[in-house]
């Protein structure tokens, strides 16, 4: 089957992963609020019906308005935005996800529809309904919201731990993967915590409540923070379910990912300790500023966690299938012969007059196709800065043997000529893009250079570094950093 070739856009100094990561964090936080909000409202409605709270009902109606305004509006739009952003970053990956799991997505849609209908029914008519009907609508809403998480969680965790799906292509093998249950349970507890923390903010903003009533609500809302005691165990289970090399990324292998992992753990710990010790055990009151600060910390924890989840898949977007640059693992061998930049249906280079010669144009094309999804020129994770200290020959060797130079990188998927064009393009960039640049491909020794690069490519092979090598390399990096300290 022919490979679909897509146009690639330039995100300027921004790394493409940041675009999807940034939106993803926002979306996940809102989705968690919507799910946990259901649990909280069911609990408060039950308290009201059993005369265990005098203010639960007033709070419930205010909170639900807030939930609709924030979560329904932003959540619905950012949910669609996730799809569109994924297309911008990696159309082939999202294409595979849709093709492989479209019935799972369609099933999730039926739950999402139930969530929206039951939610709006409560929003519009809740005040005029009998208690039992109110509770029933809230339970339906909560079930629907949680099942939305259930279905989407299976697809997201499959990206990192597809397991036997790689061979069997069975939807259910991929769906109920090693990361499914720990991720689902962790996210469920996180959802309850986020909803409770936002609830504490809302408690402080409802007008006409006495201090004693606010205190009562704080204690009742804080009950949903109790499951946070499970978070360390569920988190450890989730981390344990990751492949060892992916885990190593977050535990010292990458500075950025270790930092975000620490933010996630640290923020969660701070929220958890305050919630359990001060709010639940100590029965302290919490004001609007402190509760808002806790929400920010929870957002930090979500941001850190989602960044790590996106990042630890390197060098893949779907493990053992698609590399980060949307090249399939099985296509590398063929691209080593046919080349990537010379495909007849390739999109042309934009602003090609900016480059001093044809070899640089080809190098720019290779950069666009193979590197630009994770690297920029002069921006975030800039490849010209990462290679600044390498000599030309080092660049030839390191790029041709990319998966050995850095085992978390994919193998180079192109010909020796393309390696050389990329090397020249990077050298030209190091020299601030001069108007005149010699073409090594026009020089006599080019045959020898190509042969040398071909030797490097052949030595490295077309397979990625195996997981053990990736793990080992990352552990070595982590150890070096600790020793450096």
């Amino acid at each position: 089957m022919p490979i679909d070739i897509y146009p690639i856009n330039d995100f300027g100094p921004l790394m493409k992963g940041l675009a999807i990561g940034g939106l993803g964090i926002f979306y996940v936080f809102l989705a968690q609020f919507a799910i946990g909000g259901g649990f909280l409202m069911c609990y408060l409605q039950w308290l009201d019906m059993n005369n265990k709270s005098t203010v639960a009902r007033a709070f419930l109606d205010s909170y639900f308005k807030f939930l609709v305004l924030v979560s329904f509006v932003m959540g619905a739009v950012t949910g669609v935005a996730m799809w569109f952003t994924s297309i911008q970053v990696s159309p082939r990956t999202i294409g595979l996800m849709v093709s492989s799991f479209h019935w799972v997505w369609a099933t999730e849609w039926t739950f999402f529809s139930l969530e929206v209908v039951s939610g709006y029914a409560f929003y519009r008519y809740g005040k005029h309904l009998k208690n039992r009907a109110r509770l029933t609508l809230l339970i339906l809403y909560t079930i629907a919201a949680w099942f939305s998480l259930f279905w989407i969680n299976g697809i997201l965790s499959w990206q990192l731990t597809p397991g036997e799906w790689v061979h069997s292509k069975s939807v259910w093998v991929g769906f109920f993967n090693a990361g499914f249950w720990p991720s689902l349970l962790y996210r469920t507890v996180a959802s309850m915590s986020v909803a409770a923390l936002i609830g504490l903010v809302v408690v402080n903003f409802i007008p006409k409540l006495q201090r004693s009533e606010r205190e009562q609500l704080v204690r009742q809302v804080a009950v949903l923070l109790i499951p946070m005691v499970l978070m360390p165990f569920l988190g450890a289970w989730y981390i344990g379910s990751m492949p060892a090399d992916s885990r190593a990324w977050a535990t010292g292998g990458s500075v950025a990912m270790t930092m975000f992992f620490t933010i996630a753990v640290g923020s969660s710990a701070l929220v958890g300790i305050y919630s359990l010790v001060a709010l639940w055990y100590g029965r302290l009151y919490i004001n609007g500023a402190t509760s808002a600060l806790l929400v920010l910390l929870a957002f930090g924890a979500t941001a850190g966690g989602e960044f790590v989840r996106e990042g630890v898949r390197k060098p893949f977007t779907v493990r053992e299938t698609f590399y980060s640059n949307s090249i399939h693992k099985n296509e590398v061998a063929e691209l080593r012969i046919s080349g990537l930049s010379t495909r007849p249906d390739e999109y042309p280079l934009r602003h090609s007059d900016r480059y001093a010669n044809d070899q640089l144009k080809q190098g720019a094309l290779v950069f666009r196709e193979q590197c630009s999804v994770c690297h920029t020129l002069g921006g975030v994770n800039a490849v010209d800065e990462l290679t600044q200290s390498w000599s030309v020959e080092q660049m030839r060797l390191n790029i041709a043997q990319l998966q050995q130079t850095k085992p978390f990188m994919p193998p180079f998927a192109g010909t020796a000529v393309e390696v050389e064009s990329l090397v020249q393009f990077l050298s030209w960039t190091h020299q601030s893009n001069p108007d005149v640049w010699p073409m090594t491909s026009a020089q006599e020794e080019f045959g020898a250079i190509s042969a040398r690069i071909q030797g490097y490519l052949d030595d490295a092979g077309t397979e990625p570094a195996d997981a053990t090598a990736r793990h080992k390399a990352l552990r070595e990096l982590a150890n070096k950093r600790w020793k450096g300290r």
Partner: protein
Amino acid sequence: MDTVFPFGFPLATAFYLTLFVVTLVLHVLFMNYVLAGTAWLAWSIVTGCAGLGAKSAEIAKNEPATSESILADWIPTMLSGAITAGVAPLLFVQILYQREFYTANLLLFNRWMSILPVLIVGFYSLYVLRSNWLTRRSVFVKTLTGLLPFLCVAFVAYSWTENHLLSVNSPAQWRAFYAEDKEIYFEPQIIPRLAVWGLGSIATMCVWLSWQLRYRSVHQLPVNSQSMAKLPKVALFGLLASIACGIAYYLSAPNLGAVFLGPMARWYLGLAILGMIAQVIGWLQLLRRIPLANEISLKPLLLTTAGLVATVMGMSVCREAIRLTSLGTNRIEELIPQHAEAMKVEGFWVFLLFAVINIGLISWCFWLVKANFVESDENGKGTS
């Protein structure tokens, strides 16, 4: 492509095409309410016919409901419905035309992604329209806020049409578009095409509004009789204007006649025309009866509703026939194995099971509200 839609295609392609069209119709019914509704609200606010603020949202019990007050109250919910209903066709379009859809998204890049913040602004401005805050603002702010939802929704509608038309270009045209570093695509048929759908949305909104006004009058809630009387006139205007634009579109696009009258679409074009005739007859009956009976009669309303569904269904298939013809036989032949592969994927029966269960639960939600509605006391506590 030489027989009636979707029977000229292999099973898998026909299956996904059918799912796509059926879910698209559902989305269009919600979307049309939002598009025409925001336009009506904008017009009413600019001309000073509509009140703003909480009164227009929470329709006061003793105050007769107008079309404007119902629209202000319901559009945010219906927009949510449009987005929710839009997820399914968005999923199936990725199965059917993955390369085409993704390429158009990528080529339009920032221009395409801008629909997301615009949609959020439009969504929130609908809630602002219902707030007391707005009643205290200047005429300029009120007018701007009144126009904002329509401008945002119209922008999104325009963008979808632009994206769709770019997606049916050839790969050579895509490469040329990419090379020029453009992010805006235009071709002359965008305007008449958008006009057909945009003006056609007026009739859809009028059918929805008629049911909403009828529901209130059946339940002894006050309804503004002028609003009821105005609906058939507005619907007929929308229908006739849409037909006129349809004829202009038909005449301006040379290949359209061959597609519409070809074997794939001709029965559906007939269905759409029959639907329009049914709508016109229904609306004419209502035009005569509403002033006499001061209510929206059930039978003509059922006729217009059936006509509307037939028209939207027929036109949706005609739209799909244009796309299939534009892509050409060779491309469809390439896509057919991909659809067959997609159909082998497990999970359909799970989807069907939960679809049935959740449709049942959604229906139960409506019943719960209907059967348990009680008057509220000051504290919001329900009393039977």
